[in-house]
């Protein structure tokens, strides 16, 4: 009898011990996309594993969710299915669409409660542009990039250009490109310049050219809903892009494909390219020549859009889980992780303090080309932030392709594109 009582007591203690433990342990779902070739999914899983070891009460399950578009679709599906992720990385550019779906929460309260630890002013202001809307912060920068200009130093030397003085203005750019374009027997064996305009992130570099021409592709007073395609700077940019192939003959004629541009540069088929800083690792591994990176040359001004993905938290998550998700997001966007992620992936570390860490200093010492993107951030603008972004980008791309494949005047083509965009945004 005594024995049985003892047993019951033991069971009781065990149950009493296990139940609170089971309650204390929380399982969070974390959706993330991958936009870079290579084992990035495994790297992210590795960070999460580290977190899980350090935080036995908050176990995070990393869920690879495809590319950015698919990850967004999967997130929406999960929310409608009643099983939302607790935290996710989504495109920073999608903010207006995401707010329109009413699925995320502003982070200001969470940030205010943790201000000393989060240090929002440690993030480069340029990377916060696509994170803020209506005076509120909606997402924390994580995997961010900007385009830079890569140039082949060996080719520069070959044609008598100073390899340490890359072109600063678009006029210098075209002049250098002319020198660098090499013809053999009526065939071009090396193009001077390539600015990709189709496939992948098709409107990104056009946006960069528009910014350089002194404009923006959207209205800052109505950033959710007004695109400025029929504008003087947008026209100048489109004209510039067309003339590179048509008139100056320093670029392959017609639209240039994003996917093969880095390969063409590494193969020496083109001497200068506009390309994402995320391609740095690829070019480093594949180019056998000495290369440099530089700011995108200016026309009226220096300038570039930013790109990439941020951390978001969701409305449907109950408060206790949200707190845990916030802890995780905070850790993932901490100085140390962002520095490691930058080195592992090629993205630009969005925290200033990440660049002061020993690992980062070591990395930059070895590959000084990585600094250009960071320094260019002082001239950066928000990436086209309007809603219905996928359709809008498609309409802009269509207009741009028409510019590059026909000889009709640029103005009317863009005006036509503007009409279509206005309809999409109505």
């Amino acid at each position, binding site marked *: 009898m005594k024995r049985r009582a003892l047993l019951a007591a033991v069971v009781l203690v065990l149950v009493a011990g296990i139940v609170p433990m089971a309650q204390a342990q929380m399982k969070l*779902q974390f959706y993330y*996309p*991958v*936009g*870079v*070739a*290579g*084992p*990035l*999914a*495994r790297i992210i*899983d590795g960070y999460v594993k580290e977190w899980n070891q350090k935080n036995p009460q908050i176990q995070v*399950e*990393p*869920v*690879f*969710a*495809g*590319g*950015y578009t*698919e990850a967004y*679709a*999967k997130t929406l*599906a*999960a929310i*409608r*299915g*009643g*099983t939302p992720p607790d935290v996710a990385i989504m495109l920073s550019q999608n903010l207006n669409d995401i707010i329109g779906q009413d699925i995320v929460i502003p982070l200001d309260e969470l940030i205010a409660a943790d201000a000393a630890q989060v240090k929002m002013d440690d993030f480069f202001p340029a990377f916060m542009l696509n994170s803020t809307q209506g005076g509120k912060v909606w997402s924390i920068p994580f*995997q961010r*990039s900007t385009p830079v200009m890569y140039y082949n130093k060996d080719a520069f030397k070959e044609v008598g250009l100073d390899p340490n003085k890359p072109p600063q203005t678009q006029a210098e750019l075209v002049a250098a490109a002319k020198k660098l374009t090499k013809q053999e027997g009526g065939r071009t064996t090396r193009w001077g310049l390539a600015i990709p305009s189709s496939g*992948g*992130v098709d409107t990104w570099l056009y946006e960069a050219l528009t910014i350089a021409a002194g404009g923006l592709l959207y209205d800052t007073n109505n950033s959710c809903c007004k695109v400025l395609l029929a504008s003087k700077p947008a026209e100048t940019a489109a004209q510039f892009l067309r003339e590179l192939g048509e008139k100056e003959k320093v670029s392959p004629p017609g639209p240039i494909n*994003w*996917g*093969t*541009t*880095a*390969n063409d540069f*590494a*193969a*020496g*088929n083109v001497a200068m390219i506009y*390309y*994402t800083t*995320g*391609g740095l*690792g*690829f*070019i480093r*591994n*594949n*180019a*056998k020549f000495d290369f440099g990176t530089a700011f995108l040359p200016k026309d009226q001004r220096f300038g570039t859009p930013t*790109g*990439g993905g941020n951390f978001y938290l969701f409305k449907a998550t109950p408060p206790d889980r949200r707190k845990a998700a916030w802890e995780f997001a905070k850790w993932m966007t901490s100085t140390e992780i962002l520095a490691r992620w930058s080195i592992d992936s*090629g*993205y630009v570390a969005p925290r200033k303090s990440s660049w002061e860490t020993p690992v980062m200093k070591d990395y930059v010492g070895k590959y000084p080309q990585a600094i250009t993107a960071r320094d260019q951030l002082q001239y950066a603008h928000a990436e086209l932030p309007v809603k219905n972004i996928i359709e809008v980008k498609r309409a802009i791309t269509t207009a741009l392709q028409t510019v590059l494949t026909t000889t009709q005047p640029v103005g009317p083509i863009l005006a036509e594109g503007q009409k279509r965009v206005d309809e999409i945004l109505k």
Partner: protein
Amino acid sequence: MRRDWPAILLSLPFLGPIAFLLLASFTPSREFGQGRYWSFPPTLESFSLAWQSATFVLYYRNTILYTVGLLAVQLVTVTLAGYALARLRFPGRQAVFYVVLLQLFLPPVVLILPNFLTLRAIGLGDTLVGLAMPYVASAYGIFLVRQGFRSVPPEYDEAAMLDGAGRVRILWHVLVPMVRPHLAAFSVVSLIYHWNEFLWPLVATSSNSNRVLAVGLQSFTRASESGAEWGLICAGTLIVIAPLMLLFVLFQRLFIESFTQSGLKG
């Protein structure tokens, strides 16, 4: 040999990508990037990188469970449904057949969200069974097999019936052997389709332990924010399609026969 020329010409557009796949995956990535598309000796570096980029053994297991398991169930359902629609007389048969046809015209992408919601509701979200569920009754298979049964003269059924065979026996011993080419053709289509499928498994599953090859492949070949690493992408693709290619080479004759026969009779 001369008779084969048209066939060879026709196959060129399909051989091109395969040739590229082989060249890119066996050439050192650095050289391929510089425009040297062939190197000797070939290298396996891209394969080792691709293999490390995802948990392939797990994905193989899941993909085989998913595709083969689904096919086994499908073969039963499409045979029974095809038989019913071809041989049994019941009120509304034609209507049922039209409903099946209707499903053929619906692009599967449209059904992703409703299917996903249904799975969640019945507790099969993020499981391999749930992944297969929407395909258990294949309209394409039912249609194909029904046409197959209809091309078999009813005299066969009647003869077997005279010998005292029941419906199940007739179906199993008389009719199924005669529609084997249709079933084989359907099997090939089903296997390839589900082996390659990406969007539905991406949405329907979340845990790594329930993920299939196509999703795993996409996890390290996305290049919108970097350069296209052809070596890695092609090596990964080869790892994913190798079993199917091997199957096809081994059973090539069988595949082709089944397609031509089912086509002739259908």
